[in-house]
């Protein structure tokens, strides 16, 4: 076959050869090592910036305590056992509160995702309550049930349950219609279709929804503990304000970040383990 005639522009001159461009980075995956490397570098960089700013005394220690002071304070709190106790109390509260919320939200989300009548009955109501600020419920819940752990569970529940219901509903709605039809052609009962087809099919997405809502639950827990509590991470932050212990506040904020990051990464890891079958060839 003869070579194709060279492309010519309208004026007869040969077209300039298009520049060889590097392939776009858009959507291109990177290796796990590179990912961790970049993520770590960002943390280290921010830490160094923090150290530099305080070492040069650009910002006073009352506004931004030096890393050394924060670490020393955390070490002292850890040695006295206060840190472990604060964490134990808060982790217990979020675990129970989040579990109650999840146990309520998943079945309801599945039902309203599958049955339009239930959706009509529940979805607008959930939306209505969802837009009420959780913070505004704090005084009310104190009036209702005091400042015990129960009130913390309630605040976490109010803050996460309504969001979870809607997320799970959407997850269930994206289950392919033909998966349900398959169950029907196999003469499976509706309960079996829900349990053995819809639930496992939506499970990876539901797991992600739970991971995201767990992050919000941490916020609501600390809010509840800041306002009224006698223990917990939020309580410690609140009392440290009274003595201008900015290093304690900073230490605990960092600790909350670390706890959040750890739970999030654990959930992600569990997702990969639980849903291995989603991996490509």
């Amino acid at each position, binding site marked *: 076959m003869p070579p194709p005639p060279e492309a010519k522009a309208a004026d007869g001159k040969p077209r300039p050869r298009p520049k060889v461009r590097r392939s776009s980075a858009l959507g291109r995956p990177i290796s796990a090592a590179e990912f961790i490397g970049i993520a770590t570098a960002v943390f280290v960089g921010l830490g160094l910036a923090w150290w530099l700013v305080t070492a040069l005394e650009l910002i006073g220690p009352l506004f931004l305590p030096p890393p050394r002071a924060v670490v020393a304070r955390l070490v002292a709190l850890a040695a006295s056992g206060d840190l472990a106790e604060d964490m134990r109390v808060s982790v217990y509260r979020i675990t129970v509160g989040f579990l109650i919320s999840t146990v309520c939200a998943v079945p309801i989300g599945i039902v309203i995702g599958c049955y339009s009548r239930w959706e009509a009955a529940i979805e607008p109501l959930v939306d209505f309550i969802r837009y009420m600020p959780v913070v505004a419920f704090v005084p009310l819940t104190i009036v209702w049930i005091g400042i015990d752990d129960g009130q913390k569970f309630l605040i976490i529940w109010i803050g996460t349950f309504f969001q979870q219901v809607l997320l799970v509903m959407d997850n269930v709605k994206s289950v*392919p219609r*033909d*998966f349900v*039809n*398959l*169950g*029907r*052609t*196999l*003469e*499976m009962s509706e309960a*079996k279709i829900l349990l*053995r*087809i819809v639930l*496992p*099919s939506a*499970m990876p997405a539901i797991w992600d929804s739970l991971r995201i809502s767990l992050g919000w639950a941490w916020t609501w827990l600390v809010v509840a503990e800041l306002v009224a509590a006698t223990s917990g991470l939020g309580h410690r932050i609140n009392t440290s304000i009274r003595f201008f212990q900015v290093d304690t506040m900073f230490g605990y904020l960092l600790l909350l970040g670390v706890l959040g990051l750890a739970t999030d990464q654990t959930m992600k890891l569990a997702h990969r383990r639980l*849903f291995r*079958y*989603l*991996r*490509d*060839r």
Partner: protein
Amino acid sequence: MARPKLVIRGLGKTYRTDRGEVVALAGVDLDVGENEFVALVGTSGCGKSTLLSIVAGLESMDQGVVTIDDEPITAPGLDRGVVFQSYTLLPWLTAEGNVAFALAAAGCKASKVREIAREQLALVGLDGFEEAYPNELSGGMKQRVAIARALSYRPRMLLMDEPFGALDALTRHHMQELLTRIWERHRLTVLFITHDVEEAVYLSDRVAVMSNRPGCIKTLVPIDLARPRRYELLSTPEFQRLHRTVLDSIREESIQVAQLGRALER
């Protein structure tokens, strides 16, 4: 002649939408004999998939009757195996697990499930892929598992809704050959929906051409080509003639639709 396996009489279906009523099917009459392979072809949107859904019991009908072995259809059932156009393998189950899932739902004895599932996968040439998850299988392989799954619980007939529609041309040809071979060996009653005329003529004993809006059976073309059929058949004059007959019949429909479209633009 013995009474046909599947009998459709005066079937009608109307959808109510915001813009008014759409008559999808009207006065559909069709018989499928015992162990007969009937392909239903038509332009897209002619209602052929709706017809299959009604036979499967997944959609309701407004008029007419559909019977299998003289029993009217009211709901989906294990007497009809369905292969869907979309991939419907459950992603958390292996190939074998997917077949076993159907067998268990059909009430197969637990001790037998594994053996039958493996047998069925071997039938579609997937021995060695029992432990593979759907994500690890190609499109053609997924549909082969879906066929194995639909056949596993021995339904009285197989309903296939454009099962090869999403596959590339080469894979589609392989799948057609495979299906022909299975059919010739095991003899089943099949209602097969497609818009691929070549596929319809190659696979079936009779091709039913559907008209557009409202959909009804316009022509029935008997495909009297000898079996076993192999792919060389496609280039023979007899095949070309039948292909042409069916294609002409469909073309009339699509031309009508096109003219209607132009008339609406004016």
